């Protein structure tokens, strides 16, 4: 049949809305205000402000990715072990927060963390030391972990549910104790889920400008904030595009990793 023809609308669509726009980013990134070729917009990443912003973004997003992984793995194990009649309900409870707008939820953390906020109110009531993490990098990490944790839990959970129980039983029968079974069987088998989770947390965390804006009190300049400001405020699209190209290098690195491990081409988001 004319299946080849069927691909035309999609190919047209992706050329117009994926390829050409990316080319435009490269065009702006590699030219100056007068349209002449230049590498200065890319080299601009080396200035102290920009490299600091990039470094902060990498640092914060790596820390949050690790925290997400450490929190999510046990959680996915527990959820997987709870195969009750309503297992999907249990999982959904952890996805449910995503149905409330993420800006509002992040904003709500402000209310909780503020100096005069809810958590400090409770701490003072018990005469405990007050918490002062709002407007610091720690608050941004908290916001990242909070927003992206489900993206780590779900792929790991999906992989764990697919592990054949008989493989685990076999390991037990062959004399492996629980720790050994975990380290030698479960952990290696769950690596694809972990990798998929890591890429799905790392990229949005690396490039966010919203979380740092809301929870960082405007003081934390991540590479995402710099790019956003170049486009919406200082109006230097060439510089913004140049920095975006640098950012994309990190993402391509990520894509390669995920392409290598995720051969199935399946993404486990929900």
């Amino acid at each position, binding site marked *: 049949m004319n299946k080849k023809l069927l691909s035309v609308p999609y*190919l047209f669509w992706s050329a117009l809305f994926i390829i050409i726009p990316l080319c435009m*980013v490269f065009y702006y990134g590699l030219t100056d205000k007068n349209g002449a070729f230049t590498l200065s917009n890319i080299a601009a990443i080396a200035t102290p402000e920009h490299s600091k912003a990039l470094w902060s973004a990498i640092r914060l997003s790596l820390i949050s990715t690790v925290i997400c992984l450490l929190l999510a793995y046990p959680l996915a194990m527990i959820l997987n072990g709870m195969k009750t009649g309503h297992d999907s309900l249990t999982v959904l409870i952890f996805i449910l927060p995503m*149905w409330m707008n993420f800006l509002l939820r992040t904003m709500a953390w402000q209310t*909780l963390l503020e100096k005069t906020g809810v958590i400090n109110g409770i701490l003072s009531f018990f005469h405990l030391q007050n918490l002062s993490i709002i407007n610091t990098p720690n608050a941004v990490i908290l916001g990242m972990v909070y927003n992206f944790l489900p993206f780590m839990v779900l792929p790991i959970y999906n992989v764990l549910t697919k592990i054949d129980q008989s493989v685990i039983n076999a390991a037990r029968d062959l004399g492996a104790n629980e720790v050994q079974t975990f380290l030698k069987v479960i952990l290696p088998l769950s690596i694809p889920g972990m990798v998929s989770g890591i890429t799905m947390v790392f990229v949005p965390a690396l490039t966010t400008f919203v979380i740092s804006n809301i929870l960082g009190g405007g003081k934390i300049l991540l590479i*995402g904030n710099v790019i956003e400001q170049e*486009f919406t405020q200082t109006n230097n699209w060439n510089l913004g595009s140049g920095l975006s190209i640098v950012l994309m290098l990190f*993402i391509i690195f*990520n894509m390669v990793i995920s392409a290598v491990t995720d051969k199935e081409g399946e993404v486990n988001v929900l």
Partner: protein
Amino acid sequence: MRNAAKKIYLALIFLFLYAPIAALIVLSFNNSKTRAKWGGFTLKWYQELFKNESIMQALWNTLAIAIISATAATVIGTIASISIQSMKKRTRAIVMGITNIPMLNAEIVTGISLMLLFISLKMRFGFTTILLSHITFNIPYVILNVMPRMRQLNPSIYESALDLGASPLQAFFKVTFPDLLPGILSGFLMAFTMSLDDFIITHFTKGAGIHTLSTKIYTEVRKGIKPEMYSLSTMIFVAVIFLLILVNYTPRDKKDMHKS
């Protein structure tokens, strides 16, 4: 003992995930315009909400964009999946690589690139530009849900339908489509959710006087969120929980058991 530890762990994560939501719900009953003060219990923001035209309009835009973009992406994505499946291995790898771009790329870059495109096309920024962008980032989610189903299909069934005198369209809708349906539905659902929650791409592709809930909230974050917004999200949240419980406590259909 071990079970207790598990329960405590679950409870802590639960608290972490739901504490801000609880805060939002409490704020929706706060009889004071600013977040900073507790002014007593009130239900007035729930009445105000329905009178607040701009929030209602933003809600409507959000829903309309999510429904239309998810539907369009589902149609385009499903057709694309069928054709991608029949491609040569090499071409397929390239096309799938391109498909992955909007999903793996940073949202800020996708948003910027689309903004640059629309500006160079001299398009007027508004509903259409947001919609086109949402369709673009929704298509991959549909393809990635439909493709695995495609691979499981047995092509000989489709062919035997043709042999038995069905037209290609008939054969598709009677034979192939029912098998793809679960993938299509989950693709649609995922696309819908992504569209609903998107802020960054909308932020760069929206124009004068049009807001989705996300962009509306973002502008309000700076000057203090209107309490009506809290009551709206509380209502959405309660509605979702209610339906979740309702759906989960009705008899389960067996087809769903082994999946999900």
